[in-house]
């Protein structure tokens, strides 16, 4: 007999569960070691609360009415629920606050793409610690977490969420044209970006080439110099922010695994300033990401800077298995 479950969900059997538990334990232990206390929040929240995160991309894919007609939603990440929790439970607490979680979240999927509707995220949120020191602490915890998962070759991309918004403002691009260009950038469609930019009135070929060239700058601290050569106040401000963060990382001794990346753009609208992405050479998919969300808590009435990261647990598990078999191959 086949008793189906919805696409994008799955059962976990004991052998996998044992491995997952081990991984969970290692991650939470690492978070705790850095002083991050684990919290849990309900999987279901009021839709209006989750909608404060970012209407367009982070809005819940699954909404329903309860028996009294309230609109409820399944969370699509943990950052917005934790912002809500901080505002209601820790509004007057001494800052910074260090919280961590390991929880399931829910997103819409396309059928037959191997995407998960329900997936597990592990991450931290550091509330009340501004850039650059706060960002550096988050990256430090992220590195230790990747080590704890056995992903010692993983790379952390560091970019700036405000770069292109500010650059386009500087070029005088507004409204629908700007939104469309940001969409091209988020998709990393360089051909479309160049074509659309060249159609915007008042943008020279040189400015167009600068914008496209910026997206391809990734590497060590040398790319900051290359970016500055391309010029402009927006680039100058963004590179200054990245440099500040990078120098703080160097002070913490955690800059080696960080790749500066001026082409990074977050899918989530609540990020500002530093944004992070995590890759491992053993996997073709992004393992996780994060960054600063200094404006998000204001939407819940608390004015505190904040930063954090989240890893996709299932992908980390796949990468862990691949790295283990690689190490065994190398040893034999």
């Amino acid at each position, binding site marked *: 007999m086949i008793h189906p479950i919805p696409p994008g969900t799955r059962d976990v059997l004991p052998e996998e569960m044992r491995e997952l538990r081990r991984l969970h334990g290692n991650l939470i232990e690492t978070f705790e070691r850095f002083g991050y206390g684990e919290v849990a929040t309900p999987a279901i929240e009021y839709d209006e609360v989750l909608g404060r995160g970012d209407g367009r991309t982070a809005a819940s894919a699954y909404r329903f009415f309860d028996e009294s007609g309230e609109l409820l939603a399944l969370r699509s990440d943990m950052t917005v629920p934790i912002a809500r929790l901080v505002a209601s439970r820790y509004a007057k607490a001494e800052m910074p606050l260090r919280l961590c979680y390991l929880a399931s979240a829910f997103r819409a999927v396309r059928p037959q793409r191997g995407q998960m509707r329900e997936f597990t995220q592990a991450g931290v949120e550091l509330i009340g610690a501004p850039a650059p020191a706060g960002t550096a602490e988050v990256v430090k915890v992220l590195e230790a977490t990747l080590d704890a998962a056995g992903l010692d070759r993983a790379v952390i991309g560091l970019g700036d969420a405000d770069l292109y918004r500010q650059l386009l403002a500087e070029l005088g691009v507004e409204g629908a044209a700007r939104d469309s260009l940001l969409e091209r950038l988020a998709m990393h469609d360089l051909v479309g970006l160049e074509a659309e930019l060249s159609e915007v009135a008042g943008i020279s070929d040189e400015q167009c080439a600068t914008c496209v060239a910026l997206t391809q700058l990734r590497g060590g601290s040398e790319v900051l110099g290359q970016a500055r050569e391309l010029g402009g106040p927006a680039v100058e401000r963004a590179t200054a922010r990245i440099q500040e963060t990078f120098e703080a990382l160097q002070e913490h001794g955690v800059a080696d695994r960080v790749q500066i990346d001026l082409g990074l753009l977050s899918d989530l609208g609540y990020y500002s300033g530093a944004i992070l992405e995590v890759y491992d050479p053993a*996997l*073709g998919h992004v393992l996780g990401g994060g960054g600063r969300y200094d404006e998000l808590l204001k939407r819940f009435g608390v004015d505190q800077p904040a930063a954090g990261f989240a890893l996709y647990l299932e992908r980390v598990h796949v990468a862990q298995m*691949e790295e283990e078999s690689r190490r065994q191959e190398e040893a034999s």
Partner: protein
Amino acid sequence: MSTEVAGLGRAKPEGPLKLAVPRGALFGETLDVLDGAGIDTTELRGDSRSLIFEGSEITLVTMRPSDVPTYVEAGAADIGITGKDVLLEQADRRVYELLDLGFGRCRMVLAGRVGDERLGESERRLGVMRIATKYPRIAERYFEETGRQTELIEVKGSIELAPLVGLADGIVDLVATGRTLRENNLEVREEIVVCTARFVANRVAHKLRSVEIDELTAKLRQAVTS
């Protein structure tokens, strides 16, 4: 060169760069451009039935053009070449589009029977046009953007047949020279978009193999502009 790739488990951005080469209409010009970029394509030009051609710096993997985004998104190929029509139809595949290679130029069009007013008449009197296509997402988006209602009929084979036997009022299809349309008594009514071959990359490979990919992008750019 051998057909086996050592230690190939799950897709990963390691070892020689894996480049997805489209078989079919784009195949010949893709090989010419790769030659121009200094990549040896001699073995692919032979009559080998192999799918994988391993080199020291780059491994060429051949496949249907419409499979290229699937392989590149998963990282089973680090980079690839395919048509913009394929990328538009599979717009939800997260691949980086790095370069317009310029060749393989063709037009996505709405076509109907010569001298036949079925398209207009159906729209006016029935409120919907029946459109047969292999590109349902491109067609859906186009008609939405132009504010018209359609009944899309997805077919796999010779699309020109559909309006001739009355399955559809018109077709949305890719046209290179227009010869097939003419031979079947069809004509272009509207042009939707012009498509050319594009160079694409996996998100993670683009970050972790940046030097190699940037170098190859520059060589390809040179090869298609010279």
